[in-house]
């Protein structure tokens, strides 16, 4: 029997899958670098056994590289953990600066593949809003994919959080070409689920996600 997928649930699973695949790829890269550096140490030991002295500066360089990538791997896993915990509660107070930082980190491989720089501005004062964190992350991710395509290769997207009278807005700027249709059904469904409004502005070359309190 053919099963009709539940829209929001299916979107969410796809989003979770894409992020998990990207994270696993990043971790593989980190492991590959650590593996090569461990192998290089082994090569040096082998050469030392054959009578070629080891240069301490080379060893220091290798240990620094390993330490650097252990820190990188730890950061990736920390973000993965934060992301995984975003489904713990359907509603809680979401800190916007933390959210943007996490989403930019999770989106980094997608941005690199599209050759787009993505950055965010810190809000002038702490901004938080009650929302379903996972739906909000999913919506932000989909909007970011659209924004990066609109910015084009070598483009730059900046996320600017703003306090509004009735809530918070996240403005994505640097969207050079807004001709592609937006929002599509997944973005519309997610925006409805969290009571957000999506608007694009071809003059300002921007996309705004307005979140009501």
């Amino acid at each position, binding site marked *: 029997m053919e099963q009709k997928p539940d829209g929001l649930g299916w979107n969410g699973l796809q989003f979770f899958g894409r992020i998990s695949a990207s994270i696993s790829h990043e971790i593989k890269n980190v492991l590959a670098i650590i593996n090569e550096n461990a192998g290089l140490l082994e090569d040096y030991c082998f050469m030392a056994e054959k009578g070629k002295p080891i240069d301490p500066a080379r060893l220091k360089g290798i240990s620094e590289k390993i330490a650097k990538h252990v820190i990188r791997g730890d950061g990736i896993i920390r973000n993965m953990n934060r992301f995984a915990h975003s489904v713990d509660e359907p509603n809680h107070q979401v800190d916007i600066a933390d959210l943007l930082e996490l989403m930019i980190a999770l989106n980094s491989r997608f941005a690199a593949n599209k*050759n787009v720089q993505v950055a965010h501005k810190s809000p002038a004062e702490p901004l938080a809003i009650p929302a379903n964190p996972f739906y909000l992350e999913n919506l932000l991710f989909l909007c970011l994919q659209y924004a990066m395509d609109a910015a084009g290769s070598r483009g730059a997207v900046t996320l600017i959080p703003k306090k509004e009278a009735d809530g918070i807005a996240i403005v994505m700027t640097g969207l050079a070409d807004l001709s592609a249709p937006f929002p599509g059904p997944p973005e519309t469904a997610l925006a409805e689920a969290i009571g957000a409004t999506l608007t694009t502005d071809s003059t300002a070359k921007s996309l705004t996600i307005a979140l009501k309190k």
Partner: protein
Amino acid sequence: MTEKVLLVDDEIDFVDTLAERMKTRGMNVSTSTSAKEAIKRVEEEGFDAVVLDLMMPEMDGLEALAAMKEKNPDLQVILLTGYGSVEKGVEAMKLGAMDFLEKPIDTANLAERIQKAQANRMILVEKKTEEKIRKIITGKGW
């Protein structure tokens, strides 16, 4: 004979360390962190083998493989990937990749594949040279 190899990956610490390890094994190694630059270098320099990462910004490994093989059909390309899906592997082989390895790699295994790549390339070059000589001889009626 020293193997001339180009390592291509956007992870600079990965290519640099792998290059050093291959150099200790007597190989002549060059590196590149961009697929576009690698395509240009393959045209200009000529390598026995190219070790190419599948996932790179701007242009992925499969696109780069197709571009390299179009102009250098004898080039031996070994693809590296974080996760090797069957579909990608099949696509890579269809495009003429010699091999498809998953990261983290076994360096001894990679070194063997590079040596095999050099041998493959030499056989292809010899065959083409023989073909040319045969054509000349036939053409002259000798």
